[in-house]
């Protein structure tokens, strides 16, 4: 007996091969998305954790002006300090004669006879420093690769106004600089910023700091409070120009990578989950309809003597095979995506190695979800069929009753032709089926939009950041505060059309018990090159001593215009100010504070600027670049084109790779939903449609009937889909909001149109197939079934 069921199984699978394939693909897409993104996430997290653990990433860090080693002993003696590592750290301008840009190197001292006890260095190539020689250095891999340095090369830094040559003996990585950025600029530029590890002796003599240190890191003993220790350290270092100790969460590299991991978590979990849910939902709907359509077959089987159990088992096998096929394909696809994505991360984050790991639990989880969705559908449908008397079940189901309400009769059906009445009746009597079908298509549209809207958002972000607010062609940073006349000097250079001077200071802002270290940027009152906008996209002008905060900062400190805050300058005279908040600005990244330049200069009692923004004459750009490189007091030259390119190649590439894979999955699911919806309808209504044929309708007319029904479903599904798209996109963007990023929701109407087009094209393609099948159906055999 069972063997015959087995044959039915195989025969059914073959007969419905198109449906089997499309459903399996839909499952594969859902599973693939979940497996791919989640496994990438895991790989990244593991790489980070392992790097931190093996290379003893410290817990607390701090910088100060300088202190003798005896103070180090005092810090070590504080309760909670497990290991303390002191060092000298300073940024120097690098001399890169072959390059058109300037670069800055952070020089950090390390022991020559062993690894430092904390923040150990991973040597990628080359050798460790020689204790007997000075002026050797290990260079960060990012910088070395970007500039083509290898062990054996020399590089010069400008120390105390003189060129000092260093021998590069090794290429290295450190857990402190997995993400190497300088200051507040979130876009890494490996070409212009590198880390150099050199011997203590070298830095001591270069900076006259024998027996002192200006930077430290420590690891926390088990069970100790980080904040309490930080407070004690700050108190200790008050007299030594301590800038404030901070934990990992404020360490630049860690903060960015953690933010990114958290953001990715959302992308890796929420979105694939949505996809998988849609896939499971579709699975559920289609399976129940397929089984429902085999009602008479099941009843016949029962009548012949098969038990409920064997029949159920048959359908379970049927569904499991499909789900299995889908899950295998999906896992394979997901693993492939995961490997590619992990590789991408490897190029971007400087880990010693980042291995792809696939936790089998993920595969199992997605497999089980799909399976349960399918089983649930089957059991429900089967239960309904089993409840019927076999004889009744063997008969085709009664046509659904078409009872019209009086208003329906008066306003709608009386106005319709016979054909339209048929369509109307089909759509309304099986309300559930129609609604589910519509919902399915709307969901398909929704996930397509979720994959595609990223391009719009990135477009907006780039436009806002590079062309609406910061409109300069180049940014020139000075080595220290410069007088305003430095700006006039700069203006004389051929190739500079417009120049504007700005100031920038590191400050700490206090609000209640919260404090944030950030930059206070001085903007000229009627700035021509840089604009500031609030969240209504109105221009904001600096006013008096009022500070303007980016909305992320305002949120973090819970401030609004009219509040007053304490600021502490973290350099120079360490002034303390009490200033009002005058406006909140909209910024998608970073949290700086802004103030009127003149007022800042008054507060500082100096007529100084820190950087200049320029509009450059494209014809003379190359000459200008060369000239700017050789100005001693200029420490950074950034051309917008390069920054934009770097931005597009790093952060943007990620999002677009992610969005592209989502979009492809969405296309597959969308087509699967539409195709199956049509295909199942065709099977279910075979008898009806063939009756129409017998009555005299030709194939084309029957086809049109079906098509109009589908058209109506689409007409309702589209606006529903648009609404869902907006809602879910908003949800996604909100979940991805971190302390440092607030990506806005921007969906161009074009995207809605394209997503709708995907559904419409899927429908058109599916209807071609439906027409083809309609033609093929043997009228006689189709009508025979109803005996």
């Amino acid at each position, binding site marked *: 007996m069972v063997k015959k069921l087995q044959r039915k199984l195989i025969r059914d699978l073959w007969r419905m091969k198109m449906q089997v394939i499309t459903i399996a693909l839909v499952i594969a897409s859902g599973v693939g998305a979940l497996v791919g993104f989640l496994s990438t996430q895991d790989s990244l997290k593991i790489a980070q954790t392992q790097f931190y653990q093996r290379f003893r990433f410290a817990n607390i860090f701090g910088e100060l002006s300088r202190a003798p080693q005896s103070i180090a002993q005092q810090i070590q003696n504080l309760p909670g300090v497990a290991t303390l590592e002191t060092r000298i750290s300073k940024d120097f301008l690098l001399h890169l004669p072959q390059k058109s840009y300037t670069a800055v190197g952070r020089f950090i001292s390390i022991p020559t006879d062993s690894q430092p006890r904390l923040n150990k260095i991973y040597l990628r190539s080359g050798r460790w420093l020689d204790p007997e020689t000075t002026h050797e250095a290990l260079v960060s891999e990012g910088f070395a690769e970007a500039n083509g340095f290898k062990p054996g090369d020399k590089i010069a830094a400008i120390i105390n106004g003189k060129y000092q040559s260093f021998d590069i003996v090794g290429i290295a990585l450190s857990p402190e600089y997995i993400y190497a950025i300088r200051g507040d600029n979130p876009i890494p530029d490996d070409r212009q910023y590198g880390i150099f590890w050199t011997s203590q002796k070298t830095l001591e003599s270069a900076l006259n700091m024998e027996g002192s240190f200006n930077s430290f890191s420590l690891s926390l003993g088990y069970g100790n409070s980080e904040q309490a220790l930080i407070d004690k350290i700050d108190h200790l270092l008050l007299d030594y120009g301590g800038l404030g100790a901070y934990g990992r969460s404020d360490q630049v590299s860690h903060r960015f990578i953690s933010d990114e991991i958290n953001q990715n978590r959302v992308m890796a979990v929420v979105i694939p989950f949505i996809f998988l849910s849609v896939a499971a939902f579709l699975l559920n709907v289609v399976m129940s309809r397929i089984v429902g359509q085999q009602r008479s077959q099941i009843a016949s089987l029962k009548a012949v003597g098969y038990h409920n159990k064997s029949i159920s088992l048959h359908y379970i096998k049927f569904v499991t095979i499909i789900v299995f096929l889908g899950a295998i394909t999906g896992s394979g696809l997901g693993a492939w995506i995961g490997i590619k994505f992990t590789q991408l991360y490897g190029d971007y984050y400087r880990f010693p190695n980042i291995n792809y790991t696939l936790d089998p639990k993920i595969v199992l989880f997605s497999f089980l979800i799909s399976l349960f969705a399918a089983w649930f559908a089957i059991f429900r449908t089967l239960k309904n069929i089993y409840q019927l008397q076999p004889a009744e079940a063997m008969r085709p189901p009664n046509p659904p009753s078409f009872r019209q309400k009086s208003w329906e009769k008066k306003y709608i059906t009386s*106005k*319709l*032709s016979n054909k*339209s009445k048929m369509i109307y009746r089909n759509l309304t009597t099986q309300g559930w089926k129609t609604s589910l079908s519509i919902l399915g298509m709307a969901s398909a549209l929704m996930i397509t939009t979720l994959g595609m809207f990223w391009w719009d958002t990135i477009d907006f972000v780039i*436009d806002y950041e*590079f*062309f*609406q607010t910061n*409109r300069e062609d180049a940014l020139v940073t*000075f080595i220290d505060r*410069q*007088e305003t*006349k*430095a700006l*006039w*000097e*700069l*203006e*004389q250079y051929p190739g500079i*059309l*417009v*120049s504007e001077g700005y100031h920038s200071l590191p400050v700490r802002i206090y609000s209640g018990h919260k404090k944030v270290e950030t930059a206070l940027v001085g903007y000229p009152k009627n700035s*021509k*090159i840089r604009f500031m906008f609030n969240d209504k*996209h109105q*221009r904001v002008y600096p006013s008096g001593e009022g500070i303007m905060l980016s909305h992320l900062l305002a949120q973090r400190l819970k401030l609004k215009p009219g509040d007053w805050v304490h600021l502490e300058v973290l350099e120079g005279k360490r002034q303390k100010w009490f200033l009002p908040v005058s406006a909140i600005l909209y910024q998608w990244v970073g949290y700086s504070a802004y103030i009127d330049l003149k007022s800042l200069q008054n507060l500082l009692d100096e007529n100084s600027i820190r950087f200049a923004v320029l*509009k450059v*004459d*494209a*014809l003379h750009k190359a000459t200008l670049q060369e000239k700017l490189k*050789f*100005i*001693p*007091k*200029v420490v950074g030259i950034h051309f917008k084109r390069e920054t934009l390119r770097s931005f597009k190649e790093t952060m943007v590439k990620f999002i677009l790779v992610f969005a592209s894979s989502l979009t492809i999955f969405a296309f597959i699911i969308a087509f699967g939903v539409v195709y199956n919806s049509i295909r199942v309808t065709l099977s279910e209504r075979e008898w009806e449609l063939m009756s129409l044929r017998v009555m005299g309708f030709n194939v084309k007319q029957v086809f049109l009937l079906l098509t109009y029904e589908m058209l109506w479903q689409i007409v309702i599904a589209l606006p529903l889909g648009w609404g869902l798209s907006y809602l879910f996109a908003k949800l996604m963007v909100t979940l991805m909001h971190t302390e440092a990023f607030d990506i806005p929701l921007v969906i*161009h*109407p*074009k995207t*809605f*149109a394209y997503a709708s087009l995907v559904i419409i094209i899927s429908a058109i393609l599916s209807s071609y197939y439906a027409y083809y099948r309609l033609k093929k159906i043997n009228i006689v055999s189709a009508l025979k079934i109803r005996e």
Partner: protein
Amino acid sequence: MDNLEKRKKKKLGFKALFWFLFILSLAGLIYWAFSPRPILVEITKVTQEKYQQTLKEEGKTRVREVYQVTSPVNGNLHRIELHPGDTVQAGDFIATVDWPSPRKIQSPVSGKILRIHRESEGPIQRGETILEIANPSALEVVAEVLTENAVQIPAEASVKIEDWGGCDVLTGRVRLVEPAAFTKISALGIEEQRVNVIVDITSPPEKCVRLADAYRVYCEIILFESEQALTIPTGALFRDAKQWAVFQVVDGHAKKTNVEISRRNSEKAMIESGLTLGDQVIVYPSDKVKDGSLVKSMF
């Protein structure tokens, strides 16, 4: 025509209308979705206004004629009772040196004591400066100007003197560009050749009564001036191959227009040809703006 036919016709008409409206709204929706959205840009008009090409330099005030009073002999100087700021008349006795007997030194001019170099009693050498006398209100301004810029300064160029601490902007006139330059390290650390440019203060003395010797001022030397020049903000310019161009706004669209500029400074550029008064141009056009793009003012 009987009822049935009439009804049929009505139904047909209704249906046709319905589908027509449906297609129309669909087409409209598609058109709206795909129609280009205007790019937000900053737009200003070509204006006719005063254009000035200026040179901004830091300067120091200097009293025109300084009289250094030196010791005539090697002897013993008596304590100087005068202080900077004291008024003296020509002929007043201002210092006494012993050798062999007390010699009284008289002031050569009327004016104020500018600086006291030797206050205390003690031995003094012949030629050593004791004090300086000058008329502090006879001030001039000295600005150190790059030689490349100095050659562009027209004779008797007007100068605006500002940021000296007082409320008013003072006026001046370039009296002389010294014939010899010297080497200096600039603010940004570059070695340069600079030459002193002497500026007479032409504002009435009441306005600058608080200014004294060696005070810092900021000079803006006017190299060129045109009263009714056709100007646009320099931020609107960009290069089109080797030529200058701007994006004009015509009927809500950007139009790339080549222009010729006769002069430009950090703020404005003087148009020689290519634009007329009242034309609208885009300032700091983004990468998205191309010839023909739909644009809209962001304000």
